[in-house]
């Protein structure tokens, strides 16, 4: 049992600077914890307040009031009364709450502070974002504010870590004071109270105002949210993001790949022959390698999204795409998860937690596996190569075509699912409200740190699944003997099913192996058709015929059929596992998987037969 320490909760409106404060207070010692049964990540760390006292600091998702309206607000509210579930704290309620106030938009935030105070929580506040555009405009006088509100308030400047030692001193002093336990959170406010609270808040703001908020002459939003230029900007920003994910990750991915192709034979040599050596080098190390290869891409995706997030653009993107997405039952807030789905469905599904409407969130979860994830790229690369050979212009056009048609196909599928399988019950008012945060120049170190932690979280989540499966595939393709492995037997069994798709059992084996990871389809084809002569891969594939006949195996029709199959088919077990977690139901996750595999097969057969 770890030693119990006082628990300090950081509470505040979304985007008020809680996480920045958290990072400063806890240095690099913080980690992300999945709160059990919840859908939102808490940040938990420790902070040394003085020589002899350490405290737990808990970063919470932003809330706007103590009347929970969404899932994440409910979860944050739980931490107010059950903080001992999160950290080894001696009391159920936090020993101190630091309300993080955004000095740039103070009046809307004081009602929350008042609610917490009225409940009797041990409270203090820090006033952040007072310095706009590099100049330290103290908009509000912290001492007057403190006097009016009856709690200690410390002004801090996050980018320069100014005021942090003063903040820590006040935190120590507040923790040393005895406090009563807070009241239960009952129906706190009704509509009239909210109006009164805002009026009260505005009076306090006026009384403690030191200088007027400087007027900002130029506003990017006039262009980036413009009916025409907004759409143009959206297109260019998205293109840039994809370039970053797909182009910049490549050298790192190649590096990891060659690292593993060095390590694996080396391990093989040390352990000698035998099943154990094979299990370790091929099954386990191969499994780990196939996870690690995608880590640079995942990191860069989080990094790019972090840049967009801290700049403030994601909120604008969500606004621009809200209308087109709502046509198929989604929400503007589906934008970010779908965007992530273009790299990997796993973090994308986690990102869908922010979508307010349940139906839109489910439809988004259903749409994510249909996005062109990075694992599909090598598959399309090979198939397009078979179709157009070295013609780079046609190949490029084909790849673009694949991207666009998969978005269109996904929209049609989701539109149909939404209309026929998940009809809107009664007309509820659409819910899409989003606050557009002020524009910021992103702080690279913060974005990188947060991307790093998200990447570690991803590895911990998906790693064991991918590794375990790697061992299974290894066993199936090794026993009873490599030439007559179980997986070949399976290939023969499924051959009749594959005939309508215009391919034979050998391609079937590759399709089967692709259920471990889609890109395995490419390496399996290499193994099966060219038997260790990678240089001849294309030649042997182009001239491959059905066993014992002269009928060509890879014709434009079968290639197109395979492309369509990969567009729709859900072959990624990690995606199924995360879908079950996010949908909260095995039935739905497995239903979706089976549905997409059958639909993929059906569409592929239609394409091949109709060609």
């Amino acid at each position: 049992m770890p030693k119990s320490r006082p628990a300090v909760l950081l509470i505040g409106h979304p985007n008020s600077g809680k996480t920045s404060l958290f990072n400063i207070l806890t240095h690099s010692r913080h980690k992300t914890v999945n709160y059990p049964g919840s859908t939102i990540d808490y940040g938990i760390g420790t902070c040394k307040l003085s020589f002899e006292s350490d405290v737990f600091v808990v970063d919470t998702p932003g809330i706007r009031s103590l009347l929970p309206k969404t899932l994440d607000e409910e979860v944050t509210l739980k931490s107010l009364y059950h903080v001992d579930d999160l950290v080894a704290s001696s009391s159920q309620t936090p020993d101190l709450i630091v309300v993080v106030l955004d000095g740039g938009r103070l009046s809307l935030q004081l009602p929350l502070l008042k609610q917490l105070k009225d409940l009797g929580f041990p409270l203090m506040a820090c006033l952040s974002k007072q310095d706009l555009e590099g100049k330290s405009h103290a908009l509000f006088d912290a001492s007057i504010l403190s006097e009016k509100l009856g709690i200690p308030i410390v002004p801090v400047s996050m980018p320069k870590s100014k005021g942090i030692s003063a903040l820590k001193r006040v935190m120590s002093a507040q923790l040393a004071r005895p406090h009563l336990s807070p009241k239960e959170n009952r129906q706190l406010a009704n509509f009239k109270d909210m109006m009164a609270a805002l009026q009260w808040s505005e009076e306090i703001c006026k009384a403690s105002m030191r200088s007027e908020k400087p007027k900002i002459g130029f506003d990017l939003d006039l262009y980036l949210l413009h009916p025409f230029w907004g759409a143009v900007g959206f297109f260019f920003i998205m293109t840039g993001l994809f370039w970053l994910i797909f182009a910049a990750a490549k050298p790192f991915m190649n590096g990891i790949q060659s690292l593993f192709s060095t390590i694996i034979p080396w391990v093989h040599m040390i352990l000698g022959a035998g099943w154990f050596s094979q299990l370790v080098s091929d099954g386990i190390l191969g499994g780990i390698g196939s996870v690690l290869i995608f880590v640079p891409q995942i990191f860069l995706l989080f990094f790019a999204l972090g840049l967009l997030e801290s700049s403030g653009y994601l909120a604008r993107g969500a606004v621009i795409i809200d209308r087109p997405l709502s046509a198929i039952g989604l929400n503007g807030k589906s934008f970010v998860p779908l965007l992530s789905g273009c790299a990997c469905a796993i973090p994308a599904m986690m990102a869908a937690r922010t979508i307010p409407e349940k139906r839109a969130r489910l439809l988004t979860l259903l749409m994510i596996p249909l996005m062109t994830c990075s694992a599909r790229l090598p598959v399309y690369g090979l198939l397009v190569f078979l179709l157009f050979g070295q013609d780079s212009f046609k190949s490029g056009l084909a790849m673009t075509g694949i991207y666009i048609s998969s978005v269109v196909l996904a929209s049609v599928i989701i539109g149909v699912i939404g209309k026929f399988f998940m009809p809107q019950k009664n007309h509820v008012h659409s819910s899409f409200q989003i606050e557009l945060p002020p524009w910021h120049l992103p702080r690279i170190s913060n974005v990188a740190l947060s991307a790093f932690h998200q990447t570690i979280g991803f590895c911990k989540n998906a790693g064991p699944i991918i590794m375990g499966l790697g061992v299974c595939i290894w066993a199936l393709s090794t026993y009873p003997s490599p030439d007559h492995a179980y997986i070949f037997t399976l290939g023969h069994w499924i051959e009749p099913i594959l005939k309508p798709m215009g391919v034979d059992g050998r391609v079937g084996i590759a399709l089967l192996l692709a259920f471990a990871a889609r890109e395995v389809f490419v390496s399996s084809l290499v193994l099966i058709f060219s038997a260790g002569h990678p240089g001849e891969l294309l030649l042997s594939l182009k001239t491959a015929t059905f066993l014992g006949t002269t009928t060509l195996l890879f014709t434009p029709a079968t290639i197109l059929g395979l492309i369509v199959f990969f567009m729709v088919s859900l072959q990624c077990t990690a995606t199924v596992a995360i879908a079950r977690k996010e949908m909260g139901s095995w039935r739905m996750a497995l239903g979706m998987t089976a549905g997409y595999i059958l639909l993929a097969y059906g569409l592929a057969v239609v394409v091949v037969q109709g060609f």
Partner: protein
Amino acid sequence: MGTALLSELTTHNQDAVITELELEDSVKECLFDYGFVPGTPISFLAKAPFGGPISFRLRDSKIAIRHDIAAKIHIQFLS
């Protein structure tokens, strides 16, 4: 000085005040948290492409809401 719906506030440099929210309680509560309370000054910021959400400035912040919601919020123009 005239009254209108928030969705009709489409020009810059024209200030208005929210007078009434003609919405169900759950939506109202949500909007209250964003500061959409009767008596609040509000001004137009931008209209998204494809007839998407409309962005407004109110209480030091910028909020985007959908057209159908804005069409249920009553405002009064300030001269």
